[in-house]
């Protein structure tokens, strides 16, 4: 006779344990309502706060009675850790929720095909659109990208592959550069390039300042990624008779490809919604500007800022819609980059 084994989980919580857990949860919710009603406290945050304190107290007291002080500490700490996780997620979820809630009414059929050149801030929502802002933002990001990605990756290669004499100071400067406030980058380009040389707003000016902000992000992330590539591979390439450049180009960079793509994504994320230098340098037109090297150019941050400033109910709805479009745009850029980086190498 051989017994048929049934897979069980002896460590799983029994139904009554689970019921106790749920009842504590419900009790804490009830207590929070009761407590807020009785005391002077007001608002959603008060409920959340009281709920967490009550839940922590209930569960740790229960553990203390049943299993002693160590178990009480354990359950208290796990409540605090969950609290931390929830507190982190709340602002992000809240932002997403608010932007979607307020942005959706501003969406309409022609929003991606019209610009604001023939619409004023008090026109109905269905007039105008964000075409000029999207093309402007894409131009700015693209120009900043082609300037900062090569520079950033070459800097990372210097720091990890060449390890030259200046690696230490350069690493320090790159780290310091990543803390440069965006307004400083904007004012720098304004005073160093726009006023003395070009004397006009353009997408290029904006992209230059964005590149200053993007280079340190790309360089630092790329450096970390390249440091993860095992030295074995560099040795193998060198032992096969490759020069250092051939080894880096053929083996190290392809092996680091998806990580480098992440570096670029982080760089784009850093600059896509950047506003301060854009306000200073691009002039923010209402029309699609096909020339990136001359003339005012609109962009989503500028559009949002301008619409909020206009103040009319329609303009504010437009601003929220602009925010939504910006978020979706960044999301699309992320997904595209992810897809590109994980795609199999095909010949």
């Amino acid at each position: 006779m051989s017994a048929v084994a049934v897979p069980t989980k002896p460590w799983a919580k029994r139904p009554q344990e689970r019921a106790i857990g749920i009842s504590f949860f419900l009790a804490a919710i009830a207590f929070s309502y009761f407590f807020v009603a009785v005391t002077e406290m007001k608002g959603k945050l008060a409920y959340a706060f009281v709920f967490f304190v009550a839940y922590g107290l209930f569960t740790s007291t229960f553990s203390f009675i049943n299993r002693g002080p160590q178990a009480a500490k354990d359950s208290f700490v796990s409540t605090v850790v969950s609290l931390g996780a929830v507190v982190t997620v709340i602002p992000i979820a809240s932002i997403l929720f608010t932007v979607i809630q307020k942005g959706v009414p501003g969406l309409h059929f022609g929003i991606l095909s019209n610009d604001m050149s023939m619409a004023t801030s008090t026109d109905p929502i269905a007039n105008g659109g964000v075409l000029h802002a999207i093309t402007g933002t894409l131009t700015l990001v693209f120009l900043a990208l082609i300037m900062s990605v090569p520079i950033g990756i070459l800097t990372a290669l210097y720091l990890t592959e060449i390890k030259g004499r200046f690696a230490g100071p350069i690493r320090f400067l790159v780290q310091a550069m990543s803390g440069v406030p965006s307004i400083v980058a904007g004012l720098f380009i304004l005073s160093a390039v726009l006023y003395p040389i070009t004397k006009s707003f353009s997408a290029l000016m904006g992209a230059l300042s964005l590149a200053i902000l993007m280079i340190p992000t790309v360089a630092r992330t790329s450096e970390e990624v390249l440091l993860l590539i095992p030295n074995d591979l560099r040795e193998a390439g060198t032992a096969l008779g490759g020069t250092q450049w051939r080894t880096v180009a053929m083996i190290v960079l392809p092996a680091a490809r998806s990580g480098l793509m992440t570096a670029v994504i982080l760089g784009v994320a850093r600059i896509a919604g950047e506003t301060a230098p854009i306000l200073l340098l691009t002039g923010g037109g209402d029309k699609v500007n096909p020339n990136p090297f001359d003339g005012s150019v609109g962009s989503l941050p500028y559009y949002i800022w301008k619409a909020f400033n206009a103040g009319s109910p329609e303009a504010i709805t437009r601003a929220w819609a602009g925010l939504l479009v910006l978020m979706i745009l960044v999301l699309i850029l992320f997904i595209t980059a992810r897809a590109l980086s994980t795609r199999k190498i095909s010949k």
Partner: protein
Amino acid sequence: MIQTPESEKAMSSTQPSSLASVANARQERTHASTATGTGLEARGVHAWFGKNYVLKDINLEFAAGSVTALIGPSGCGKSTFIRTMNRMHEFIPGAAMAGQVLLDGKDVYAPGVDVTKIRLQIGMVFQKPNPFPSMTIGENVLSGLKLAQIKVENKDELLESCLVRAGLWNEVKDRLDAHGGSLSGGQQQRLCIARALAVSPQVLLMDEPCSALDPGSTLRIEETIRELSDSMTIIIVTHNMQQAARVSDYTAFFLSDGGPGEMIEVSRTSEIFSQPKDQRTENYVTGRFG
């Protein structure tokens, strides 16, 4: 070493060592070697890592077409020594060396020598299999050509012949487009051997090529080494004394007594395992220490 009744018997008759039975495992060459060049020679090689003196005055000759095993306890400088042969030693920051390494009579450390050419002539297989992760099996084999920018007439033919010589062709011929990482450890190591063969080196250095592999893969690679020894000079570092006995013509014993590693003895493999001249060699090969 495991002492078996058979080896005891062999010892009692003619051979003084318990390893006599494995020492004769390698069969004598039945046909002449086709290896090119006049081999490799180390003359007075010393090596340092920073202030750490790791290798002292090594003089060794490797005849063309021979297989030489370097044995000795960990940390006695065997790997450092073979890395000085193809100038991979200088890859480590703080490394320094003295002495000469002669390939076909020419010093590889002479001024003006193209170090990438040296590494093409003296190939290397590492302890840990390290196929290039971004390349397919086929691309891995031919990667040396691309790295060194060598043009080849018939790539497919070369690909096949390298994989055949490395003993991997039958296992991968239908999936040359798969990634190198999809192979087992032993297959990966043979892929690395095939990769080293593609640039047709005169000398192949192997740094404990089987230490991370199971016995079956080890056996397969030893067969490969024996086949390759017909056409090239091979230097293999190993901790496995039976392996040294199975594959090598000559064996050199390295030892460090706290200071820099030194070469204690070099001889025909059968002699090292049966009649070592130095007491320390005998202690090591009979498993009394190390």
